[in-house]
């Protein structure tokens, strides 16, 4: 689940060979944030630049697959056009359709074709185009947050943050594990609590506990917290 990364692998830190999330969170708490990184400032700057790049790559999803697919489509279209042009140039009969006839038919549209078929084709092409376009334009964030650490880049999956916040909420509300559900997204934490029947919950106390835990964790970007207390309770929990 956890995902923590040491960007400068050449300088080995024996105490955090495989830092898990809790460990990383502890050290982020313990160390004074903003303490100067070891090494000269020049080296530190270079590491910082590399670190920023790595962190960005870790928190955004890769577009390599979609880009590759688009490139493959374009290459296939070009190869086919080349083939047909070459056949025409050396005077052979066309393989599927020769370029001039294709262009003429294209300009003659919608001659003879049913408008329903044309519309459906257009819709499919527009949908594929929209998928490619949105993939290119949207930020494509992964469900991960960054934790501040003076020496290493720490990337944490949202499930880990959710689990930590659920524990805080559960302790504050004095309910069992099953009665708390936390959903963490980029900018919002939603805490759903089902109270125990007969024991009213104080919403502000849960909110304070969750916010306190979040402040100590200090993920970036910092989400805001919303607490939902269910109206119906659980008997004998």
């Amino acid at each position, binding site marked *: 689940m956890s995902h923590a990364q040491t960007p400068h692998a050449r300088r080995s830190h024996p105490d955090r060979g495989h830092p898990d999330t809790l460990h990383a969170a502890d050290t982020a708490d313990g160390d004074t944030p903003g303490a100067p990184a070891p090494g000269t400032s020049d080296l530190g700057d270079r590491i910082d630049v590399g670190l920023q790049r790595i962190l960005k790559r870790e928190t955004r999803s890769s577009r390599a697959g979609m880009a590759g697919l688009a490139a493959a489509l374009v290459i296939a279209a070009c190869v086919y056009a080349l083939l047909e042009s070459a056949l025409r140039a050396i005077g052979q009969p066309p393989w599927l359709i020769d370029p001039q006839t294709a262009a003429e038919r294209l300009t003659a549209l919608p001659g003879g074709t049913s408008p329903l078929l044309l519309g459906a084709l257009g819709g499919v092409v527009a949908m594929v185009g929209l998928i490619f376009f949105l993939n290119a334009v949207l930020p494509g964030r992964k469900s991960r947050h960054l934790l501040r650490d003076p020496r290493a880049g720490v990337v944490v999956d949202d499930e880990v943050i959710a689990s930590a916040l659920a524990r805080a909420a559960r*302790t504050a509300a004095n309910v069992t594990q099953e009665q708390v559900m936390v959903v963490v997204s980029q900018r919002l934490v939603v805490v759903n609590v089902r109270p125990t029947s007969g024991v009213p919950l104080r919403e502000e106390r849960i909110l304070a506990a969750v916010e306190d835990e979040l402040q100590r964790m200090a993920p970036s970007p910092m989400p805001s917290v919303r607490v939902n207390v269910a109206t119906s309770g659980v008997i004998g929990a």
Partner: protein
Amino acid sequence: MSSTAEAVQPAVSLAGHNRISTQALTTLAQAAAAEALGVSAQDVRAEWSDDDGLLALSIAAPIRVPSLTEVLRDPLRVEGYGGTVWDRAVAAKTAILERVTQLSGSTLSRVDIRISGARVSEGARVQ
């Protein structure tokens, strides 16, 4: 009543979680109802349900009544038992609610009582 309920809640600073199981609540309700209706706890059936985050208790139990020959001989015996069956059931609701709230620390919103039978007492006065 409410102060008792708050006193049962553990302090927030302490880690850990206390729970009162449904079984324990049911046994407690049976004992409280048995005490209020003057029957033995095995004869009482208690069920819990949720009422908008509060506890709702429904009880099916017999009730202790004086024998009819005794009532014929002395009509005041009915008063000695606490009035009619209806009056006693209404009074028992408050008694059970307060008792269970006090002992379990949970807030009850309502108590439904169904009298399912009568236990005739032949012996000395119960009061």
